[in-house]
């Protein structure tokens, strides 16, 4: 119905249905300024769909699972903007965008509080065995087996933040209130942060009791958390990942957990979602989350506002709200 009324509105192509459309509601993304062209609702195969509509598409709404490649950009020569529903941009060929003068706008910091909250929640859960102890009670074991084994104190722990961007900074701010000692590794030292800086992640790990992965997935950070880093973190170390699965060498991490080279892990992301290494299912010292750090109505509403704001600004020739520029 909407498409009949608004044939003349500029078009934004959407390749797959973004989870936020389902979980929050498409109506939050409605605008009188533009309309969505939903490739996923067409019976045509994607390349044919693109060829049919190429001339009219000026912007792409991208979500994880539908990468924006150089090839796609070539098939859509009128595209000048890619807006993502994610903060992460690992599914976007950024150099290809730059080359073609295509601007990219991401979710900026609308998610940062929720992601930071989850990171802290996962860290407390691993150290204090919350999910595990909850299972213990529900299985009736408190009555039959007695008191639950002790966990580990969070206060006073040295926490190494990998990537001190918007999310990393929010994590640091929260953990300081728990009496944690914060240090970090980032591509560059941050002038606004007074935490100790380590220029490489191995040294950060060697001086931390817990690592929280908050950085972007890029060619440089892929498998950055490898066996050496995990061994440096040590037998009493805990790792929390709310970035992207591939930042950690997952096979090595699983081995380290199996061999008790590290104490535990809290993971919201994995290398091959939704597949999770089976070995983790038998472990009591890991907490697993199905990549939903941003899945709150509050975050999604803020995201919808930002996405619509960016697209409307673009079509009205105004400055974008969250233009991504490499720092």
């Amino acid at each position, binding site marked *: 119905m909407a498409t009949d009324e608004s044939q003349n509105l500029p078009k934004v192509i959407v390749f797959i249905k973004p989870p936020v459309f389902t*979980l929050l509601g498409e109506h939050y993304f409605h605008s009188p300024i533009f309309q969505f062209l939903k490739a996923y609702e067409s019976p045509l195969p994607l390349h044919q769909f693109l060829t049919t509509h190429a001339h009219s598409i000026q912007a792409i709404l991208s979500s994880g699972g539908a990468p924006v490649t150089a090839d796609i950009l070539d098939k859509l020569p009128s595209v000048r903007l890619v807006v993502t529903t994610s903060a992460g941009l690992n599914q976007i060929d950024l150099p290809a965008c730059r080359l073609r003068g295509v601007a990219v706008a991401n979710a900026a910091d609308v998610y940062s*509080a929720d992601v930071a909250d989850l990171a802290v929640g996962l860290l407390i859960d691993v150290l204090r065995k919350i999910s595990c102890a909850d299972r213990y009670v529900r299985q009736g074991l408190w009555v039959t087996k007695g008191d639950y084994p*002790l966990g580990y104190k969070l*206060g006073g722990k040295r926490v190494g933040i990998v990537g001190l961007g918007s999310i990393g900074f929010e994590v640091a701010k929260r953990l300081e209130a728990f009496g944690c000692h914060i240090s970090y590794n980032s591509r560059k030292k941050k002038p606004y942060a007074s935490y100790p800086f380590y220029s490489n992640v191995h040294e950060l790990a060697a001086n931390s009791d817990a690592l929280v992965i908050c950085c972007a997935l890029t060619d440089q950070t892929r498998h950055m958390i490898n066996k050496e880093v995990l061994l440096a973190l040590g037998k009493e170390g805990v790792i929390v990942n709310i970035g992207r699965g591939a930042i950690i060498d997952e096979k090595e991490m699983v081995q380290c957990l199996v061999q008790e080279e590290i104490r535990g892990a809290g993971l919201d992301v994995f290398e091959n979602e939704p597949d999770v290494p089976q070995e983790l299912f038998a472990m009591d010292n890991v*907490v697993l989350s199905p990549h939903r750090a941003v*899945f*709150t109505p509050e975050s999604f509403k803020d995201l919808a506002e930002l996405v619509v704001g960016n697209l409307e600004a673009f079509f009205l020739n105004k400055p974008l709200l969250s233009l991504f520029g490499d720092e």
Partner: protein
Amino acid sequence: MESIGVLMVCPSSTYLEQELSKRFSLYKFWTFSDKTQFVKTHSNSIRAIVGAAAAGADAALIDSLPKLEIVASFSVGLDKVDLIKCKDKGIRVTNTPDVLTDDVADLAIGLILAVLRRLCECDRYVRSGKWKKGDFKLTTKFTGKTVGIIGLGRIGIGIAKRAEAFSCPISYYSRTEKPELKYKYYSNVLDLASNCDILVVACPLTAETHHIINREVIDALGPKGVLINIGRGPHVDEVELVSALLEGRLGGAGLDVFEHEPNVPEELFGLENVVLLPHVGSGTVETRKSMADIVIGNLEAHFLKKPLLTPVV
């Protein structure tokens, strides 16, 4: 000091048992099937009781031990110790404040995050293979929610400081207002419950605070409200809590304590909006050792006629 009889009334820490055994004649009350006989036999040699959250020293026990001089509790809460009786008889009482404040406050926030963000449910979701079939649903944001705290002592303040880091407005009910803290004060629990998103019980258990969370308070907190109890089970009318959760009148609950530990109402086992913990507030390796050291320190100080470390009576 090896001839001094110390009665440990419930198991709490094997490290504490070991350290007590090294210094005193330690009797573990729970290992005697006939407690009355035990008391008859040993009443003249017991000069100290070591209690914990689960058991302390009531009037009957105190009266049956004429040589009792000190009750040292492996806890900060003293609801299981008859403090008035101890004062009357000149019996000293010590607890373990401060060392466990951080752990309990950490757990309160951990429970809030676990309930609001459904951490335990998510973990179950992944382990059961359900993620392969579809995405998890939406959960509730914690940052910015109003946190109401009952009892603004050491633990209550610790919870407030942590919640502030999540940009949560803080309000509280306490016996006395604390204007220097700049949190919003409510003179009664009902008003506090009506005006917060998350209600945390952090006060001592006394006759006044027994069932301080009753049906009225629960209804005031409401279908979107969350109750967190890291105090004592009897703070909450458990029967009312269960029916409110089953009927959807309360949004969720994170509970570390229950009225009849280790028994937990089984009706709660099937609910996804509750997190149930087996009284682990101070349950870390580091803190339990610190607590045990304080118990030992207090007993040694007493019998060496030195000032007690953490006297309450």
